[in-house]
């Protein structure tokens, strides 16, 4: 669980992921921005839900993406896959770089799949008129899954090389005492 005195840290880390999600990756003639639900879960563990909720609130306050009235749904569809992927990553990550990279990539892709599925379910539950929108939303997420999986894998590989302890225990990393 997130301890009380760790809360400011969660806020700062949430800010970091918020900014990471502003990075645009070219895709065909257009570009997509990263979502990284799988990675948030892998690095933050149980704190991921709080961090995502914070990010979503700020996003809707700053840009009007999402909107305050849709906040609950958005937190659900980003947060649940993040928690699941975090658990998956911590369970299957193993110890060597290649395996961590592959598992991280799979978690990155699965995070988007989970988000898209929950979005489709929420839309479909809003009534039969929304079924077409739900299918379209699901299809639109497909190319993003591959991009996200690859980028998540490369990020995990980088972190493994540079700062391995970020991958080990979810967000309990302590600085080594000098």
């Amino acid at each position: 669980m997130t301890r009380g005195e760790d809360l400011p840290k969660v806020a700062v880390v949430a800010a970091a992921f918020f900014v990471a999600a502003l990075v645009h990756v070219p895709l065909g003639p257009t570009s997509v921005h990263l979502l990284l639900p799988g990675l948030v879960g892998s690095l933050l563990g149980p704190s991921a839900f709080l961090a995502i909720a914070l990010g979503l609130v700020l996003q809707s306050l700053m840009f009007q993406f999402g909107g305050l009235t849709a906040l609950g749904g958005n937190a659900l569809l980003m947060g649940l896959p993040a928690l699941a992927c975090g658990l998956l990553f911590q369970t299957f990550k193993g110890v060597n770089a290649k395996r961590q990279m592959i598992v991280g990539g799979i978690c990155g892709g699965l995070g988007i799949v989970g988000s898209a599925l929950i979005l489709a379910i929420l839309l479909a539950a809003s009534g039969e008129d929304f079924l077409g929108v739900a299918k379209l939303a699901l299809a639109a997420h497909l190319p993003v899954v591959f991009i996200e999986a690859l980028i998540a894998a490369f990020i995990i590989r980088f972190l493994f090389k540079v700062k391995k302890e970020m991958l080990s225990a979810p967000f309990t990393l302590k600085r080594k005492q000098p």
Partner: protein
Amino acid sequence: MTTPTIHLPFATLLLLLGLLVACFWLAVVSVRGMAAALESQPDGLLPLIGSDEPQRSLLHDWDPRFKIVSILVFAFLVVSLRQPEYVVAALMVALVTVFIGRLSWARSLRRIMAMNGFLVMFLVVMPLTAVVHPGDSLIVFDGINNWPFNLRGLMLALVIIGKAWTVALLMEPLLATAPLGATLEGLSRLGLPKRIGELLLIAHRYIHVFFGELQRMRSGMDARAFRPDHRLDTLTDFGNFVGMLLVRSFERTHRVYDAMQARGYAGEMPNHFNFKSTIADWGKLCLLMAIGISLLLADRLFGGGA
């Protein structure tokens, strides 16, 4: 009741589509100037939520607690509306509010434009996919007979867009008429756990710090002739880029926390804002509530069964 169906020649469809594209193009052109003006501002790329500039207007002088309650309740009343004519009325109320607050139209417009891509999807998809009920008006274009254009679906989409615009317009009056700290303090007085307000304040602050770092790293990449394309190498570079951002941010997290503790942080931040309610605060609250409730009542009582 049978389904009234209107048959139109195929050319009308092309004409309508052309009109839609023309409108969109016109909107983009007219917004471009405003967007350029916004981007020259210091917070142009990544907007700040609150405003620290001392300014006076009916909204700026409103006690944040009352402002938050009034505008949020009004927004939820608007979202419950069902009839197009009352949604338009609510949109007018929101426009007047922005006007009274002497708020930047460019910023409000940017909020609306941020949603429009998503909303256009509703506009195009809903008329085609809405389930046909008896009594719905259909438009069938010759040549594509099995894809009827359902007017009820179109109306549903327009109502959604109207509500979304109204709520978006209300956000600048809610947030940009006070410093973010004051708004969050008001929220905590209303029962939001104090911790959540603090977290939002910290996260908002560091988003702008990390965004500066992101831009610095990005210009470093550009200086080394990085050109994003569609090879796997680009994705590797993006992975390293985001990874480096995360490493730096996580390290900064510890420094921030140490600095807070050095200044005596023990789980609670000092309080800077004191509120005092006046008759005017209550008056503005009652006015907005009355407008919202009467809109909802009128929506449900008159206007037929929808």
